[in-house]
Every structure is written in C-alpha cells, then in structure tokens.
C-alpha cells in the first residue's frame, strides 16, 4: 500500500465511529423492520398483499393522504400570507413576527393538541361563544373527527411552512417589485407576475417539508381524532402495541418510509433539495 493510500485509510478510520453509530441505531432497526414485514406471521409477501385486498388498510392510507394533502394546502396558504406579511414588515416588526411564528415550536405538541381539544370540544370556548351569540343552537362537531385533526396539524405545520417561504421571499430583490410598478403593473399584477413566481421555490420546499412531516404524524391525530379517524402512524401503533400484529405494522412502517423517499425523489428531480433545506449552495 502506498503513502496516499494509507493517508486515505486514516481518513476513513476517522469516519468509522459515525458510520458505526448510524449502522447500529438507524440502519439495523430499519432492516429489522423490513425483515419482520416479510417474515411475520409467516414468510412471504402476505402482509403486502393486504395493501391490495384489505379495505380497512386502504381506507387508512387514503385518509392519511387526504389529511396530509389538506394540511399541506392550508399550511401553505396560511404560511404564505404570514411569510408575505413578514417580508413586507419593517425590520422591527419583522423580528416580533418571527418570534410569534417560532414560539409555538417550543411548546410541546401534546400541550398544543390538548389546548385545541379544550377550545373545540362540545362545551369548549368556540362552541360556547357561538351558542351564546346565538349563531348556532347545537354544538358543532369540531373535534374527534377529521376537522379537529386538520386544525391541530395545520397549526403545528404553519411555522415549518413559513420558514422556507420566508427565506425564499427575502431573496427577492425589492427593486424588482418597484421596477414592475414603474413599468405600469398594478399591485395585484406585481404580486401575480413577479412576486409569486419568484417565491415558488420556497413554496415547493415548504410543501415537501410539510407533506413529509404530516405523513408520520402521531400524537396530534391520536388526540384530536379521538380514535375514530385513523392515520397511518396511529394505525401502526395500534397493530403493534394493541393487536400484536408485528407483520402488518412493520409493513405499513416500510410503506411510510417508501412514501417519504418517493416524495423526496420526485422533488429532487424538480428542485435542488439541498438548497431548499438551507444547506450549502447559493
């Protein structure tokens, strides 16, 4: 072995602890999950066959996709409005806005889910207020259904939608907006033809981020869904913890990982993911 070969071996040795850590804590468990999904209760593709045959499983998957898409849509809508307001705000106001966006991130997801239950339940603040105001005569079913899950998830996801969009909006040269107006565009035209297209990379990034996060959501749907609306993560927990059907649970977990990989793969073709999540590149 020559000198440069030895030197490069030295570098590889330095990486070894990190590689071992990753192998032991991430790769091995996932490989085990994959193995179980093909071997329990009996070896073969039986668990995966259920994807095509079991209506219950299909319903869980479609519910999850529907909720995730709706969550992504509303989180992007709200997030865009907030990011836009922050971009246009004065530097002082901007810091307060950003703080207001970030504070919810520091509060436990559990606390936030229960806070929504308090607000949305039959005798909650929202229903009571509406009834006292005479707007409704019967309490609205605001929680323990898909609506409740959606509210909780959108609330959780808005900051994750705001941050990538804000980053992309702040890269837009304000002179372009002035130039557009100077050339005869109304405020609406400036937004539609200049600001919106230039902020699209941020919207795509935020969309991918929120959608992927939403797919594996567990606590919020579990609490606000009241067990009646099942999403994939909760369904997996049910299979493994309550029904001890390891094969089915791990099969679904594998599908979740595959779905996330597929989403990332598709979007990596469209946009530069590394840049989207803020690491390197310019």
């Amino acid at each position, binding site marked *: 072995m020559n000198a440069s070969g030895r030197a490069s071996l030295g570098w590889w040795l330095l990486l070894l602890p990190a590689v071992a850590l990753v192998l032991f804590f991430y790769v091995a468990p996932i490989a085990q999950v994959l193995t179980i999904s093909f071997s329990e209760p009996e070896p073969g593709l039986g668990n995966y066959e259920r994807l095509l045959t079991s209506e219950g499983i299909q319903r869980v998957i479609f519910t999850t996709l529907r909720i995730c898409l709706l969550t992504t849509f509303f989180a992007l809508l709200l997030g865009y409005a907030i990011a836009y307001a922050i971009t246009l705000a004065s530097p002082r106001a901007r810091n307060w806005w950003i703080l207001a966006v970030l504070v919810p991130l520091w509060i436990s997801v559990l606390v936030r889910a229960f806070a929504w239950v308090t607000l949305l339940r039959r005798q909650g603040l929202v229903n009571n207020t509406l009834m006292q105001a005479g707007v409704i005569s019967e309490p609205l079913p605001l929680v323990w259904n898909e609506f409740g899950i959606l509210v909780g998830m959108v609330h959780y996801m808005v900051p994750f939608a705001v941050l990538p969009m804000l980053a992309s909006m702040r890269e837009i*040269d304000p*002179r*372009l907006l*002035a130039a557009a107006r*100077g*050339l*005869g565009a*109304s405020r609406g035209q400036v937004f539609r033809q200049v600001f919106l*297209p*230039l902020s699209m990379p941020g919207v795509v990034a935020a969309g991918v981020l929120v959608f992927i996060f939403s797919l594996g959501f567990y606590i919020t749907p579990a609490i606000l869904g009241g067990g009646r609306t099942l999403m994939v993560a909760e369904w997996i927990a049910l299979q493994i913890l309550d029904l001890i059907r390891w094969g089915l649970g791990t099969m679904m977990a594998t599908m979740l990982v595959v779905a996330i990989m597929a989403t990332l793969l598709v979007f990596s073709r469209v946009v530069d993911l590394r840049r989207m999540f803020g690491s390197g590149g310019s």
Partner: protein
Amino acid sequence: MKGHALSLRRLTKRYGDFTAVDDVTLEVEQGQFLTLLGPSGSGKTTILMAVAGFVEPTDGHVLLDGRDITPLPPEKRDFGMVFQGYALFPHMSVAENVAFPLRVRGQSRADRDAKVRAALDLVQLSAFAERLPKQLSGGQQQRVALARALVFDPNLLLLDEPLSALDKKLRAELQEELKALHRRIGRTFVNVTHDQEEALSLSDRIAILNHGKLVQFGGPGELYERPRTRFVADFLGKSNFLHGIARGPDAAGMLLETPGQGIHVRFAGPVHMPRDGGRALLSLRPEKISVLNPGETAENVVEGTVRAFAYLGAGFSLVVETAHLGEIRAVLPAWQSPVAPAEGLPVRLGWAADAAVPVEEDAP
C-alpha cells in the same frame, strides 16, 4: 408630439428632520435630456423617485405638460424607467422582460410581439430574445432594461445611474449609444448620475444638486464655463481658486487684487458680480492656463516653480507653486509644452483675462 415637458415646482421631501430635497424648481422642455448631477446624498435620486412616483413629496408638485401628476401612483404615470442594477426579472426571458409593460397593459399577443421585436432591434439584441437575463453580460442587461423601458412609448424615460455598474470602456460605449438613442427617438430623458463626464457628454440640461438644493441649472457649456458657485466649479471638472479683493467690477470685467499682483478679469457672459472692495473668488480651469515661452506674454502672468507633474499621455498635468497665489494646477497638451517639465523648474504661467470666472462661496 413625441416628447413631453416636465416641471418641478418647489419640490421638497423631508424625512423627519432630514431634508432630502429642498425647494427644487426646474423645467425640462420636450425632447430634452436632463441630468440630475450631484454627490451621493445630494437628493438627486430622491427627485427622480418623486418624478417616478415612488416617493411622495412633502411639498411641491411634479407637472407633465403642465398637468399636475403628483398624486398619481407610479403605474399610472407611463414613465419608462431603467433602474440601478437594471432590475430585470430573473424568471423571464429577455423577450418576456421587454413584453412585461405591454402585458400588464393588456395588449394582445400579436401587438406585443411586434413591439418587442422592434424594441430589441433598437438596442441590437434581437438574437438574445430567448435568453435569461443572467446569461447576458452587464452591457447587454443594460440594453434589455432600456428596451423594456422604451417598449410602451413612455411619456418620459427615467434613468437611475444607468451606467454606474459598467467598466469604464463599456460605459463610454453605452454613453454614445444612449445619446444616439435619445436623438433618434426624440423622447424626454431624465438621468441621474454622480459622474460629471457622463453628465457633460449626454445632457442638454444639467441640474447640479448639493445637500438637497438645486445649485445651478443650465446647459453643459454654460455650467462648465460659468459656474455660479465654488461647488459647481469644483464638482463639474477641476478648478483652481484664486482669492482676493474685487476692484472696480462693471459689466465688462474687474480686477482681482491679491497680495502680490492684480488679476485681470474680463466677463465673457453674465456672471455673479462681486461687490467693489469685497472679498472675491475666481475659478480658473487648469486647461486654460498655458506655460509661456521666454519673451511670450499674456493678459495675466504668474511666475512659479513646478512642484509636481504627471504625464497623462495626451498631455501634462502640472502643480506650480507661486509666490502669492498658492498652488496652481495646469493641464496642457504635450505638443504645446515649451519645456520638458521637471520638479523645481521655474516656469511662467499665463492665461487670458476671460479665462477666469468669479464664483460665490457656497453657503455653509
């Protein structure tokens, strides 16, 4: 009628205690090329932005052909504008950039295509229509910005330091192009710059600004030959300043009494006339001074020694130390120099009586 007349009436813009533009009144006739010239912070850009509609004046009015347009938002003014750094839309091709003002005005695709082609022809960029702005050089981007500002037949063309981002050679080229373009299309142009050469070579009218105030307004030759104040003489070109006491000023001329000698001054046009017996200041351009041959004479002659000199290729720049007038700077063509300059060389400087102009000290 192609060009439009622009007037500013007592235009003032204050930001809190800071007065960016202080009571500026000026008129530009249709088809003229006006340059707002001044150092940074002189208020020139603020004036341009008030004309464009991006800055709301604290006081005063902007008039187009006598009509008050002060309350109109920028998109209603129909002014073409070339921004500093060009502000081309990065997500649109060159053709789409140029078509933008037409698209927001709701023009049909067929109309747009013809006009975009004509505008790109005008700036010789037809071959680059499908490129993105970032695939173009600085000079090409500048031309796209021009085409985009002109494509919709604007009332005025506003230029915010349009050449400042380019290197010297390219800047000179584009200056010529801009001037030719102005002559060809006959629109009224308003240009902002801090580059006095650009202002002199391009403009029909120059407004010199300092600390938000209009110091002098006029044609390039008038401003260069007869600066009103020390600031104008100093900012537009280079100048020597001679201090002394004015003796017997009348319409024809005066004598500037300095400790060692009198300087004869003949007025070549209307100037700021100093008070008889009061302190006076003369501006004397370096290129109007010559080095005299032995026996040669001039209306004003000063003796001194060369303290420093620089060879400029086309000529020499001399700094001559004189007994009573301090340092005098002279620039002379190499072929006209009777002696090879050297440090310590005694020389006689001479200039005609109409070479120097009395100027005012600037208000502090």
